[in-house]
């Protein structure tokens, strides 16, 4: 004892009785150092080393947009200093710092509710943990997300949420991708203390698409906020108080909005799930393929979840420019049409009128023979609404090599001018519509034609109070919209400047005119389009920094077909045709085809045009092929094959290329790269995927039109939102929707 300055004492167990049997006896020496004796000595001994914090990247690789860099503030998240814009909340500040805070009710695209309390974090100098989703971040705030208080708060909230939550995991569709499961594993405690009866709630019926099990609801109100803010329908609401709270429609009402399927993604638990997908698969057995939707011209990014050869469901992908995180009901639920009415073998119509399956050799040999027996100007090729750019290029090359100029795409009426791209594209991109403050919709109902564009218009109307005016047949909108008129008369008045709306148009800073592609079918379309362009020029709609003249196309294949030059030139091409090649085109007026013409139908569904066809060649659908599609704003995207081909089908372009070889006019490419290099010589923007080629020329090159505007009012283009193409017409879910959900 007392050996120098260091005092050391050996500890022995107090009594032999307390020593457990088989532990070895450990000697522990107590050592004291000068730093530990007094704080001054500690400060002197060594300076505190700066914590070597690794650089933090924001959650999910997000980029932080500083709208006003001078007003950036600095907060500290877990000791890490981070610069954020002024209006950010604590949760967003933590996201920038790379810390993902658990949450149930907060969603970055919806308003803040702050009722789940799962996002509680500890902030220095605050008596209670704060709800980070609602608390604005103040300069110099020190936020701590992993302290015992924050962890205890999360465990407590989790315990409360699970108290009334039913034990449905084995039968709940959300199992495996459930926020509640994931967050209770990560942040919850291991045991609960609830021993009473759980409450249960009666289920509601929202329609054939959304399945509700109300007992599982945790009352986060995400669906309520989505329906009222993004979808614009005030269907859902919270009834009751306390533990008796229910989400419902109060009256027996179905959710008829075209964005109703997105509540399935939004709901963090299994309360709102997909009814067609109910009990079909678990998410871990599905293979996700990131591809593009072709049911409309928007080209929403989707992920196709497939199990083996079957598409099980379709989920949206994030794309800020086009569809954000939403997809329309048609996109989401029409996948079961891919399983019905599929063409799988080449077929030839017998002498008694019935179809007989043949081999590819025989089918192509027959076509190759017949195509040489007709005169070149009697050959007609029509591409369909779901055709990709490669197949349209090969079709055009083949028909041209046979000596004919009659190849066009559905929806491209006679006389459409494809020289100037600004005359058929959405020149303000879909994301650019957010900057507009006045919308003039001419002959288009964006709600049924392109639901994502409609969602974007609604977002702009909500965010910046933009005004919307509409010329066309009466239809309902999910935002405030002034109905100016039903026909071209109103358009003429605005063009002449005699309509009261002209003043609003002149005062708008960024006006956006959206013309529907349904107007292309009118006989007086040149006059109407020149009236539109004169309105655009008179009101400074097209400027170097803002191009507000937009055309909303209807079909996924239209933009690419116009870029490639598939336009209809001769007026009576179809009526005088002897050989008609329909590549997936079902909207062709079959009665116009002469009775003795030989019709070849190449497509994936046995839809309307098959009944007139003499020969059927089975092709692949968009989930089975790699194809290039251009959306209505000019952005080129590619689909990726998610499931194998059905039966003996082949890719569209391969069929036409093989046909060209059998007919003796062999095309010079035999791989998809070859087709793409051919496309590059015609329309190079179609080869640059995920890039939007802005239009080059403005209305200064517009040709003058001499026609007069007729007085027939604008007609609605889409009669039934749920059934617009061959896939949706074959889908049982779409049939249920159109029977039940359409507003009569």
């Amino acid at each position, binding site marked *: 004892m007392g050996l120098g300055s260091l005092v050391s004492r050996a500890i022995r167990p107090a009594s032999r009785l307390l020593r457990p049997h088989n532990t070895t006896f450990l000697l522990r020496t107590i050592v004291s150092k000068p730093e530990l004796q007094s704080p001054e000595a500690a400060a002197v001994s060594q300076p505190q080393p700066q914590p070597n914090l690794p650089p933090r990247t924001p959650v999910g690789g997000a980029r932080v947009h500083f709208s006003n860099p001078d007003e950036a503030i600095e907060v500290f998240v877990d000791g890490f200093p981070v610069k954020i814009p002024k209006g950010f909340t604590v949760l967003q500040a933590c996201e920038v710092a790379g810390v993902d805070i658990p949450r149930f009710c907060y969603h970055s695209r919806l308003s803040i509710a702050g009722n789940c309390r799962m996002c509680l974090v500890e902030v220095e100098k605050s008596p209670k943990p704060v709800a980070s989703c609602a608390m604005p971040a103040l300069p110099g705030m020190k936020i701590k997300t992993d302290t015992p208080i924050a962890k205890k708060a999360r465990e407590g909230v989790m315990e409360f949420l699970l108290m009334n939550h039913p034990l449905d995991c084995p039968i709940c569709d959300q199992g495996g991708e459930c926020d509640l499961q994931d967050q209770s594993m990560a942040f919850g405690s291991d045991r609960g203390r609830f021993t009473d009866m759980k409450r249960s709630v009666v289920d509601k019926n929202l329609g054939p698409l959304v399945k509700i099990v109300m007992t599982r609801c945790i009352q986060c109100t995400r669906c309520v906020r989505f329906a009222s803010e993004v979808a614009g329908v005030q269907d859902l609401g919270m009834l009751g108080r306390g533990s008796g709270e229910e989400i419902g429609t109060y009256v027996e009402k179905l959710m008829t909005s075209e964005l109703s399927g997105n509540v399935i993604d939004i709901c963090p638990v299994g309360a709102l799930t997909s009814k067609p997908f109910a009990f079909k698969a678990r998410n871990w057995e599905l293979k996700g393929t990131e591809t593009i939707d072709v049911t409309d011209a928007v080209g929403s990014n989707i992920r196709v979840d497939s199990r083996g050869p079957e598409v099980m469901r379709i989920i949206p992908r994030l794309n800020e420019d086009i569809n954000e995180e939403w997809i329309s009901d048609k996109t989401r639920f029409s996948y079961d049409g891919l399983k019905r009415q599929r063409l799988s073998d080449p077929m030839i119509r017998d002498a008694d009128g019935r179809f007989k399956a043949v*081999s590819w050799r025989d089918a192509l040999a027959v076509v190759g023979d017949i195509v040489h027996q007709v005169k070149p100007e009697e050959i007609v090729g029509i591409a369909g609404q779901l055709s990709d750019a490669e197949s349209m290029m090969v079709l055009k090359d083949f028909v041209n090599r046979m000596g004919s100029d009659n190849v066009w795409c559905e929806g491209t009426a006679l006389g459409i001018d494809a020289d100037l791209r600004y005359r058929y594209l959405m020149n303000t991109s879909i994301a650019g519509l957010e900057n507009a403050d006045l919308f003039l919709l001419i002959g288009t109902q964006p709600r049924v034609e392109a639901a994502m564009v409609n969602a974007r218009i609604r977002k702009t109307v909500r965010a910046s109070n933009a005004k919307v005016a509409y010329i066309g047949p009466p239809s309902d909108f999910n935002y405030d919209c002034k109905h100016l008129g039903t026909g071209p008369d109103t358009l003429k008045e605005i063009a002449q400047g005699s309509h009261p709306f002209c003043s609003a148009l002149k005062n708008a800073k960024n006006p956006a005119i959206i013309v529907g592609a349904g107007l292309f079918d009118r006989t007086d379309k040149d006059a109407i389009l020149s009236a539109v362009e004169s309105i655009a020029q008179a009101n400074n709609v097209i400027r170097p920094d803002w191009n507000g003249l937009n055309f909303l196309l209807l079909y996924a294949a239209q933009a690419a077909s116009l870029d490639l030059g598939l336009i209809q030139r001769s007026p009576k091409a179809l009526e005088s045709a002897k050989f008609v090649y329909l590549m997936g085109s079902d909207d062709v007026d079959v009665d116009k085809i002469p009775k003795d013409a030989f019709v070849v139908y190449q497509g994936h569904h046995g839809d309307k045009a098959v009944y007139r066809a003499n020969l059927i060649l089975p092709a692949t659908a968009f989930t089975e092929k790699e194809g290039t599609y251009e959306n209505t704003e000019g952005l080129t995207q590619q689909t990726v094959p998610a499931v194998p081909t059905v039966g003996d089908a082949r890719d569209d372009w391969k069929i036409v290329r093989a046909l060209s070889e059998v007919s003796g006019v062999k095309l010079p490419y035999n791989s998809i790269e070859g087709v793409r290099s051919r496309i590059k010589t015609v329309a190079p923007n179609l080869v640059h995927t995920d890039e939007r080629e802005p239009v080059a020329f403005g209305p200064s090159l517009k040709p003058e039109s001499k026609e007069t505007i007729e007085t027939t009012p604008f007609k609605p283009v889409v009669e039934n939102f749920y059934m617009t193409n061959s896939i949706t017409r074959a889908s049982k879910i779409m049939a249920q929707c159109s029977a039940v959900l359409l507003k009569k």
Partner: protein
Amino acid sequence: MSAPFTLRKIGVPPNSANLTEARRRVFDFFRAACRSLPTVMDIYNLQDVVAPSQLRFAISAQIRNNAHITDPKVIDLLLFKGMEELTDIVDHAKQRHHIIGQYVVGEGLVQNTGSKDQGKSDFLKNFYTSNYF
């Protein structure tokens, strides 16, 4: 029909001392295979599909494929595998489509001899086979 030939099971894998012995075993194997061909045709009902000469040709083609090998041990192993295959076939452990697919020469044989296939490009030949090429 000639008297059916019973395949004597060679239990112990043979160890050939030198190349000559290996060669002798190869020919013995070929003879055993050819002698079991009538049984095979009978078991799998290949009378209308293929002639025994074609099957003999197929077997000899496969043996000739390995004609360049000089190591007796390797030859023994190949013979063992060949014997195994032959035993499976004779024991009806395989099925008709296996025999037709593996030994009735090639997938495109029936059409390969057609004259129209000469002028076709690879693209067209692959196109007729499947969508994935």
